[in-house]
């Protein structure tokens, strides 16, 4: 038996109990942990909803003691657009993974569907677009008089959406890294796990946004 081991040290298909790649198990554990991170942020936002002493407020206009009128600050139409963009990024992420997994197979080889660089790039671009929307939203809020210091709403809103934005940023960097590997040496079906774990993370960040969009923007 010892000789059997000695003869194949280069066999790099590590035995795993579940048959899953270690990185896949780890990313699921990581996502579980992230759920608690965002749960804490979202709970705090909800606990502090309506508790701010001064405006601006998310859904109602507010007249300051000096007579200045602040309008309801959340811009749902614009955020709906950015939400749509982020959801579409999940779609192209799925296509990117499929392109890498099925590299060279009929229907993928040489077709648009098999163009992993395009799909990875598109995912990153849509993520970056979402971040652009967020930058626009943050700047316009500051112009309208809401900063992280203004009130409880400002503190909890900017921290919650800012944390999400930071996660999207990390995801975009991750996608760009995969894209650069793809350009440099080409991602093969063997590398699918690399795209797979990034996709899991990306979808998770999307799902969190759906929760944030619903709880923060849509429900008054």
């Amino acid at each position, binding site marked *: *038996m*010892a000789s*059997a*081991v*000695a*003869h*194949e*040290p*280069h066999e*790099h*298909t*590590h*035995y*795993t*109990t*579940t048959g*899953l*790649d*270690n990185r896949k*198990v*780890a990313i699921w*554990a*990581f996502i*579980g*942990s*992230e759920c*608690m*991170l965002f749960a*804490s*942020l979202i709970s*705090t936002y909800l*606990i*502090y909803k309506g*508790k*701010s*002493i*001064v405006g601006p407020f998310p859904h109602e206009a507010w007249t300051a003691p000096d007579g200045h009128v602040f309008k309801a600050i959340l811009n749902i139409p614009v955020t709906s657009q950015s939400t749509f963009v982020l959801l579409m990024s999940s779609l192209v992420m799925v296509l990117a993974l499929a392109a890498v997994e099925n590299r060279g197979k009929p229907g993928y080889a040489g077709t648009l569907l098999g163009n992993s660089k395009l799909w990875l790039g598109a995912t990153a671009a849509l993520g970056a677009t979402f971040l652009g929307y967020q930058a626009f939203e943050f700047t316009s809020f500051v112009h309208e008089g809401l900063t*992280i*210091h203004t*009130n*409880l709403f*400002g*503190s*909890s809103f900017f*921290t919650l959406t800012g944390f999400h934005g930071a996660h999207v940023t990390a995801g975009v960097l991750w996608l760009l*890294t995969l894209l650069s590997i793809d350009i440099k040496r080409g991602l093969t079906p*063997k*590398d699918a*796990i*690399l795209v797979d774990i990034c996709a899991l993370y990306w979808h998770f960040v999307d799902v969190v946004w759906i929760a944030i969009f619903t709880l923060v923007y849509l429900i008054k």
Partner: protein
Amino acid sequence: MATTAATPTFAPKEAASYGQTGIWSWITTVDHKRIGALYLYTALFFFMFGGLEAGVIRWQLAQPNQHIVSAEFYNQLFTMHGTTMIFLAVMPLSAAFFNFLIPLQIGARDVAFPRLNAFSYWIYVLGGIFMTLPIFFNSAPNGGWFGYAPLTTLPFSSGLNIDFWVMGLQILGISSLAAAFNFITTIINMRAPGMTLMRMPVFTWMSFVVQFLLILAFPVITIALVFLLFDRFFGTNFYEIAAGADPLLWQHLFWVFGHPEVYILILPAFGLVSEILPTFSRKPLFGYNVVIYSGIMIGFLGFGVWAHHMFAVGMGATADTIFALTTMLIGIPTGVKIFNWIATMWGGQIRFATPMKFAIGLISLFTIGGISGVMHSSPPADLQQTDTYFVVAHFHYVLFGGSIMGILGGIYFYFPKITGRYMSEKLGTWHFWSTFVAMNLTFFPMHLSGMLGMPRRIYTYDAGQGWDTFNMISSVGTLLLILSTLIFVINFLKSRKHGEVAPNDAWGAGTLEWSIPSPPPDYNFAEIPVVTSRYPLWDLKHPDRTAGIAHSAPDVMTITDAHAVPVHEETARKTAAELGIPMPFNTVKPAIAALAIVMMFGGLLFTHKGQFALAMTITIGSACLFVGTLYAWLTSPLE
């Protein structure tokens, strides 16, 4: 990343890390056993340090109206005593065992992510230094280990003290989280063939539960600390009562983390005694399944009891009732374990070796702490006891009497496996009895002074309130405790070089880690064993005695794996190169990445000195260093 490397460049020279020496080999090591040893030494150092802090506290309190230290410094002492013991001593001592034992117990060659493992350690040690150094400059954290906001916000706690605490805990949180992802993956995915979940050693099982507690509890305190950090550094309003903030927000977030943390501290010790008791009773653990289910139940319920730390804030009858009930409920699975351990010893051939003494010590002392814990679960009783020394007595019985006794027992038990030599039984006996007596001498009188109304966290007190004698006894006990720890240190250091040489199976135990040489070679198992029962080594050595005993029926070996062989004792000491086992390369990148993270947080401190530009330079520079190191790390092959 190794699994994707097309042609692993297997260099025997670099791979033969076994027997490596020198500081550089320790800084760059990715071997789980060496990292475990690093954890052990570092955590023991912090344990001594936290003990000395307690020593000063007890010196100050030995007599009424003393002024050994100032009130302000006393605040720093009790804050750092708690913080050090919890985050820098007990958790990392458990982590030392996670590292050393989990791969050995499940029949793996290393953890799932060896470099991430090194990263966890370096974050821990650097974060520990970051938190500990300020006490020498009279600017250590001073808000209690629970750091209640708004007390810890800028208007009430200016100065760097709390900043060190906030940053330090964030840093240590990263270490715990990274380690937890690693161990979850290791336990789920790297078990030897046949090592089903219900055949895993109980220590691995309890560790498994703890890792889930870590990944679910730590994000909550991370966010609570982020709020506090933002309040202090960027002027947000999370804990600003004047802006309408809820004064209970911190308490809720903290204890949602803080109570599972209690189980994070105790479950590894429970796991260790669950290994020790069967070995020294020569009987399988009584009710293995129930012990496992109880552990899971404790972990699960642990998330539903946090507000029993907050009965005194006036949450109302409904909340008080619910949390009282869940708290009483969690006593059940804990009690079940106690009875299982007692039943394990019942009718066994008991050998009172030092590890066994500590294990029995845990059962008796933890039970006392558990009983006073159940007393606290009743809100009317708790209202009388809250913030008194009664509570201090309670949690020292569970943490010292529980966690520390279990861990000390674990050290005596696994020392032969770690070093290849036994610790001195004579000194061990002295250590046990002096610790046992001193521990009770120190902490039992606190029940009484607490019942008489002595509040926690006061730096001195007037004579004539009936507390004088009890405080003196506690302080004498602490002195004795320090002396008994000295015996341990002498034993530890002496036995490392001169202890009696231990065979593979130092104590006649039944689990996999005892089938390999002591200390284990760097690859752990020359051949990955196929596991057929819970105590495979007992089946191997005493087939006549294990036949018919309900420790899970050994099954016929059905798994066919080219790399797996039946469980056997490994005696040949070959190098990994001779066996053709690829070993991970040593690398310094995890240590650099850890240093970058600590500097990233540390840099922020300069904003409070009015040097915003400098702060941002250090923080952003370190962040870039971290990302750069991370890329270099991920693109270099593991083995």
